């Protein structure tokens, strides 16, 4: 049996037995959706459909439907892409890195965080696809033998590294998620009555791959999870490093910096944790998981946000220092323009939301408050979107040649597609919350005796 220090706060409240955990995790799957779920679902599905319409319009008309122009060739599309990829990072960090560090508090939140990763990366993948203009030729990005002469991909290009990194990240995350889901699907399968809901029983029987919980299978399960965590850990760091190289290997002032890979990874973790908090604070209320997602979990995440937020702030200041210290006037101008030029309002939002606001987490009462955390997490989500916007648009809109200087403003199609991906993301997440075991119950049961409140009180 695992031991844990008595002074640590319990991770599971309310004297839960194994059977209580089973009941609590299967309740959302077995029950009917309430009114709030339907309201949220209709809203997200509506947004999603509007997004699809805007995507169809883009593909039918061309990229000219967007606000992009010759000078600002990359704008909201890649801003949204990087933002969504960043959101995806917390899931794998929670499930993989925290598994390697043996952090028990990950167990109540890893399933939903990973779901968020997968849905987030799926949204991200949409943007390069639409930006191609001819998405039916998307297979050009893969190194497959073809009939167009020797038309191969370029392995020296960070854009191709991105293709490999994101497809690996997405598929490995799905596999890692599913391996953990198998025993939990089996639990739901065994609770379903073949008489009352035969279709559901069949469905979960299909999804659970015939899992029965044999000793040898559990032994392999644990090792496979550990090795997958070990493989996913460098993967998390590589993905956003490679995304940052899309910028860092170019010769655009403000992009051409060696600090980009760690700076992007930290920013990704920072925004990812903010999104996990936004989602989980709502979800613990909607599907009654207050006993499992406690203020302790939120506080741990707030500490990570405080750390990564401060490091992101350090990176902003380092960038400013390096541009001055480089002595390159183009580089210096890029940063002066960011802070004081026509997009200074975006820069101010970014600085406020990412550097100043997270510092509030030094105050214990804010760190330990659901409402404050929820509000702050929204600010961080906004701030991190503006970070990418600032990096991309302000570096491009005033380039080496003043005659081509211009401004960028989004069209309704840009806005529609972005809102559409938010709708799509929440649609997927809401469907997930009603059909999947939202807590890794098998893992959680193994810590009831070391971290449950009943056992803590007995000692």
């Amino acid at each position: 049996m695992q031991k844990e220090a008595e002074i640590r706060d319990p991770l599971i409240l309310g004297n839960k037995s194994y059977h209580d955990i089973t009941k609590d995790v299967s309740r959302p799957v077995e029950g009917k959706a309430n009114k709030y779920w339907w309201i949220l679902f209709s809203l997200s599905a509506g947004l999603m459909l509007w997004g699809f319409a805007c995507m169809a319009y883009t593909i039918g008309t061309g990229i000219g439907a967007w606000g992009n122009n010759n000078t600002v060739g990359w704008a909201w599309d890649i801003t949204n892409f990087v933002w969504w990829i960043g959101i995806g990072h917390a899931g794998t960090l929670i499930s993989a890195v925290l598994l390697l560090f043996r952090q028990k508090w990950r167990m109540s939140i890893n399933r939903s965080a990973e779901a968020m990763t997968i849905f987030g990366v799926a949204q991200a993948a949409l943007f390069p696809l639409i930006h191609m203009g001819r998405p039916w030729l998307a297979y050009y990005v893969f190194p497959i033998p073809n009939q167009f002469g020797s038309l191969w991909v370029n392995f020296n290009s960070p854009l191709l590294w991105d293709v490999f990194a994101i497809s690996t990240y997405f598929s490995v995350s799905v596999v890692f998620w599913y391996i953990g889901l198998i025993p939990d699907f089996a639990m739901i399968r065994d609770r379903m009555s073949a008489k009352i809901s035969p279709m559901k029983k069949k469905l979960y029987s299909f999804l659970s791959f015939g899992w029965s919980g044999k000793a040898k299978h559990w032994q392999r399960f644990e090792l496979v999870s550990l090795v997958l965590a070990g493989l996913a850990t460098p993967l998390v760091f590589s993905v956003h490093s490679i995304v940052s190289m899309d910028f860092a290997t170019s010769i655009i002032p403000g992009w051409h910096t060696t600090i980009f890979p760690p700076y992007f990874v930290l920013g990704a973790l920072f925004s990812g944790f903010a999104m996990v908090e936004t989602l989980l604070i709502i979800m613990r209320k909607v599907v009654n998981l207050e006993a499992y997602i406690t203020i302790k979990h939120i506080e741990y995440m707030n500490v990570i946000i405080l750390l990564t937020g401060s490091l992101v702030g350090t990176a902003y200041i380092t960038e400013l220092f390096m541009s001055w210290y480089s002595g390159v006037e183009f580089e210096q101008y890029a940063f002066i323009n960011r802070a004081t030029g026509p997009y200074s309002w975006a820069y101010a939002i970014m600085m406020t939301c990412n550097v100043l606001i997270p510092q509030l987490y030094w105050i214990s009462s804010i760190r330990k408050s659901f409402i404050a955390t929820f509000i702050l997490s929204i600010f961080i989500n906004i701030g991190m979107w503006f970070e990418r916007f600032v990096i991309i648009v302000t570096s491009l809109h005033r380039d080496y040649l003043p005659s081509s200087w211009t401004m960028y403003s989004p069209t309704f199609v840009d806005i529609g597609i972005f809102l559409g991906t938010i709708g799509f993301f929440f649609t997927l997440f809401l469907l997930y919350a009603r059909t999947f075991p939202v807590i890794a119950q098998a893992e959680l049961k193994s810590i009831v005796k070391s971290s449950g409140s009943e056992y803590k009180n007995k000692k």
Partner: protein
Amino acid sequence: MSSTTTIYGIFDDEEVLLSSVKEIRSNNIEIKEVYSPFPIHGLDKALGLKETRMGITAFIYGCIGLLFGGILIYYIMILNWPQNIGGKPNTTFYHNMPAFVPILFECTVMFAAHLMSITYLIRCGLYPGAESDSPDERTTDDKFLMEIEVSGDTKTVKDLLGKTGATEINKKDA
């Protein structure tokens, strides 16, 4: 004539089960299988299971992935159609190596993770649509089940199970 009987001892607590497993094995009785709702620390050792070799497979698959990535890049960039991109000609593999590292790494991880997971599913007999062979549906909820096959007299095994804390003992004649 001795017929084999399968005895199922059901436990409510994993610690009781673990000590019972040790007790029963020390009496030279073979335990056929243990079903549990979650992994029990130390159960594999108590049952005398060998260490799993899944980690080794991951390493081998990773090496295959690295090799695959290397050959893929070598064929495309160096052999089949070498190009001069940005004044950096792709005439040799090792000169261009730094630019190939990200994809070599991704190929390694992709192969190791996917092929190990597939091996795991195959070795455990898990596939979409497979039927569970658990003797009791409660083993995915909160019960721990020990399965023992006995030929002939079942009383000793039943007594041992009862004595070591089984809350329910069932049997099935084969």
